[in-house]
């Protein structure tokens, strides 16, 4: 249904939330860009430090997911964007940069701001979505 999808994830334990939906929405031969907005602090002694203490694990988790997608024959890549302000704005900018037709994210994420930050359609997937039957 879409040739280029930006799948936004915070890389947390539920990192693959919404991934199945993103894959379902992807055209055969389409491109899936996994995007992670890496939030960092700004300030005198914490400047540049990630907001999430487990940031390296989050990035590793996403890299593993993308590797699995590639093994499944999906054209996938991981894009990590540094942000000091709004992850939603960072996601919106990344979507434009990669030419995404749609952004897919979990309802646990930054969707509330994201839908007002981007003109690109956004699919928000609830964590308790029903399993697909078709």
């Amino acid at each position, binding site marked *: 249904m879409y040739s280029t999808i930006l799948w936004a994830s915070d890389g947390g334990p539920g990192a693959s939330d919404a991934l199945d939906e993103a894959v379902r929405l992807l055209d055969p031969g389409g491109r899936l860009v996994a995007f992670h907005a890496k939030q960092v602090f700004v300030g005198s002694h914490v400047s540049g430090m990630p907001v999430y203490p487990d940031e390296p694990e989050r990035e590793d988790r996403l890299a593993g997911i993308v590797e699995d997608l590639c093994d499944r024959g999906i054209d996938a890549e991981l894009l990590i964007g540094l942000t000091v302000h709004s992850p939603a704005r960072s996601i919106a900018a990344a979507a434009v940069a990669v030419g995404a037709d749609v952004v897919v994210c979990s309802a646990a994420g930054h969707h509330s701001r994201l*839908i*007002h930050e981007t003109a690109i359609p*956004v699919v*928000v*997937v609830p964590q308790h979505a*029903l399993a697909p039957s*078709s």
Partner: protein
Amino acid sequence: VNRPILLASDGSPSCAAATDEALRIASLVQAPLVVLTVGRANGGWRAVEQRAAAAAVACSTVVADGDPADQICHRAGDARLVVLGTHGRGPLGRLVYGSVSERVLRRCDRPVLVVQEG
């Protein structure tokens, strides 16, 4: 059986982008389209039905009353996807008028496609 695409729309021009996207997806995946209109029923959904027919998409319409977000979440059922438009009000507008799309996103248990209108 393909699960339906649920389009929340009154068929008015202010829902044009969401309508286009819902019809495109329904046609691609050969899913039936359900048009949900809540509140002021102005018959605008008939234009959507005509376009669906032209695209060989099975289409039905539900006209309901009540709170739009409640109705959309209630009627989402086992929809494959819920499609709705958003009008991009600023923070003040959202504070004053609320945002149906935000409330749907918080409560709906189906994937929701939000399409920015105009």
